[in-house]
């Protein structure tokens, strides 16, 4: 009850500004979903410079609105044009576009909107009811536990990477190494400054994020001559919400999608894309309509979309309770907290109840606004596709500049951002994944901090990580993830060899 009273107060005190920010955020989120090349991670990065002048709660609500709407906006192009607007839209595109070709586009959009709504609201309920008890528990976590959580997160990033394991490791360690530049916060030692003020001040991971996501994407799109994603304007854009009996027959898909999305996001490093793919897999395995998947089945839209949106709440629980971001978008949110000198973590629930209420209220209103805007604004949003991409890309470069500059009002961060933007181009070209670099840069310093603290606290006793029960369990899960990773690599190599022999045998 307290939670609800708090939220009502937050909305009331925020007034029109609060609603305005949510509408703006949802619009931007849907827009980046629709526009080719712009993911919702880029979306939150682009809105970042605008939040510097805002209060923490306003900035966070705006970002959450972009984030949550970003998991949904891409369905429009996926269903209508067979272009997944976001990576997490890939699984639903198959059924969505097939429905569209069958003349059932309006129906498909309706299912997607409803799935996003249900996933969002169920996720929100989980956020409101799970985060506080979880925070009470997390208050007992010491630095050993936090270190184990970070280690699990880093392993998760590797396990989920599609690239070769060696390349993922290289990217990850490079990120960790880069993040050690500057004055370290435990010993006050200057590391890798090479005599320059620019490096002595350290490398803000937000500059890295803006560089490798926003700038790299802009440069490669320019390099690709903006090709490959030619979109025609679809004929009619309409949304028809499904009837009650239809919903009842698909209820299982909603439940499976939402729970998959919410549960899987409990693992650090698991974003909406993984959630959507896993939900699609679950649907294909266990769904009542599993045989129609791929042939224009609403279930093939519902499950991944509900999972994508529900995933946002999971990421928020992680971020708010532990102060550890699991994905690119929540890392940007962490950056906003830090820029406002607020450290998310278990104590935040006791010390900043207004902020927490504002976030809760903001997420719920964003989900609702997303649902309404998804139905009403689909047409104008799709129209934006007619704008030549180079205009958008040019402004992305501009906002990348601004996002980096405004971090510390310094051109140094712009140079760092630019350097990483260029590095990102080479990495993409060489098949190196970017996510491990970014998460290595974000989680690396946290891991170092917790590790060193634990060591100093215990006087160098390594066994503490294994004797504290929770830490031991987390490390066991980490080891299991590693084993799985190794097993998968071996299995894939074996499969490739078998397939090769098969081909040779076939002539």
């Amino acid at each position, binding site marked *: 009850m307290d939670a609800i009273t708090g939220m009502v107060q937050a909305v009331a005190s925020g007034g029109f500004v609060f609603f305005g920010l949510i509408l703006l955020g949802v619009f931007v989120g849907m827009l980046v979903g629709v526009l080719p090349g712009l993911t919702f991670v880029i979306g939150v990065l682009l809105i970042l410079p605008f939040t510097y002048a805002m209060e923490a709660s306003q900035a966070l609500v705006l970002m959450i609105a972009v984030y949550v709407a970003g998991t949904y906006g891409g369905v429009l192009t996926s269903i209508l044009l067979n272009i997944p607007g976001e990576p997490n839209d890939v699984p639903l595109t198959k059924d969505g576009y097939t429905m569209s070709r069958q003349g059932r586009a309006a129906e498909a959009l309706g299912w997607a909107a409803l799935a996003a709504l249900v996933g969002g609201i169920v996720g929100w309920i989980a956020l409101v009811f799970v985060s506080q008890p979880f925070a009470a528990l997390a208050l007992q976590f010491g630095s050993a536990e936090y270190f184990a959580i970070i280690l699990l997160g880093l392993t998760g990033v590797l396990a989920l990477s599609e690239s070769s394991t060696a390349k993922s490791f290289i990217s990850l360690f490079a990120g960790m190494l880069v993040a050690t530049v500057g004055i370290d916060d435990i010993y006050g030692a200057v590391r890798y400054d090479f005599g320059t003020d620019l490096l002595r001040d350290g490398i803000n991971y937000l500059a890295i994020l803006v560089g490798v996501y926003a700038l790299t994407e802009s440069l490669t799109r320019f*390099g690709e001559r903006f090709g490959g994603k030619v979109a025609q304007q679809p004929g009619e854009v309409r949304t028809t919400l499904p009837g009650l009996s239809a919903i009842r027959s698909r209820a299982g898909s909603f439940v499976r999608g939402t729970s998959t999305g919410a549960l899987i996001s409990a693992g650090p490093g698991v974003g909406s894309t993984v959630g959507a793919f896993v939900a699609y897999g679950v649907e294909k395995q266990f769904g009542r309509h599993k045989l129609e998947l791929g042939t224009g089945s609403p279930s093939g839209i519902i499950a991944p979309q509900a999972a994508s949106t529900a995933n946002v709440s999971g990421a928020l629980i992680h971020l708010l309770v532990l102060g550890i971001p699991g994905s690119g978008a929540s890392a940007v949110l962490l950056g906003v907290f830090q820029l406002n000198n607020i450290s998310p973590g278990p104590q935040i629930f006791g010390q900043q109840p207004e902020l927490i209420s504002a976030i809760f209220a903001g997420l719920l209103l964003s989900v609702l606004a997303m649902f309404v805007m998804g139905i009403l604004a689909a047409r104008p949003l799709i129209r934006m596709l007619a704008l030549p991409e180079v205009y958008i*890309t040019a*402004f992305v470069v*501009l906002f990348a500049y601004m996002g980096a500059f405004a971090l510390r009002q310094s*051109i140094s961060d712009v140079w760092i951002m630019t350097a990483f933007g260029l590095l990102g181009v080479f990495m993409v070209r060489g098949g190196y994944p970017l996510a491990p670099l970014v998460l290595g840069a974000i989680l690396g310093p946290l891991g170092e901090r917790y590790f060193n603290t634990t060591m100093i606290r215990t006087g160098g006793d390594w066994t503490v990580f294994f004797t504290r029960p929770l830490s031991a369990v987390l490390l066991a899960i980490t080891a299991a993830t590693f084993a799985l990773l190794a097993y998968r690599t071996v299995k894939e190599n074996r499969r490739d060899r078998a397939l090769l022999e098969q081909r040779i045998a076939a002539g």
Partner: protein
Amino acid sequence: MARDDDTSRSAAAGDADRSAPDEPAGAVTARRRDEGQSGAAASEDGPDATKSGAASGEPGTPDDTEFEVIERRSSPRDLAAELIPELGLIALAAYLFYLAGTFQNQAEQDLLGPGFWPRLAAAGLIVALVVRIVQIFRERNRPIVKVHSEFDEFEETAELDWGRTALAMALAVAYVLSTMFLGYLISTALFLGVFIWLGGQRNRYVPLVAIGGALITTYVFIGIVFVSLPTGVGVFDTVTVAIYRLLGLQ
């Protein structure tokens, strides 16, 4: 965003096999398509396996896997192109590992010190790079098996033109550099114009968008977000500040 095409893919383009015109250029394909409902087909692999004559005694090899084999023969030049960045990184990591031992430590009595974590990361990087180099050598003349998934069609396929990419990178660097001298406002107008023009949009609206975009973002970021953007030096500072006045800023 699966953007993991290996560099080797383009290397294979040299010995293109024209027999498969529907495939990406150069890929020598040996795939068996199973266009039906893949979900239903997944469970029955028995009869198919014998038909294809595959050596599928291997456990866990789903026989109906769609795949292609990309032949390639790496020339020494390709190999060098792959190895040089990796070797360079090893040298860098080794140097950083060495440097980490020299960090000034205020608190002598502590066990790990500020160099421990950087050393860990540098060592990890070196090991991963060595593994990668071994892989490059082992795989250099081996065909690549590319297994298709049902979501392949959404992989980004646009060709990256290196000349264009280099141009974009140069523009980005020139932009940041020029803001230090010309100030944000003037540089941004120039950058927008040049970038959009070179990006293929050549119409009379481009200068309008460039100047308008620079003015609007300047107004928003200085007037509303309070970012103290670079105003440039010398005469550019004067001009920029004069325009700020016209915009009603400061």
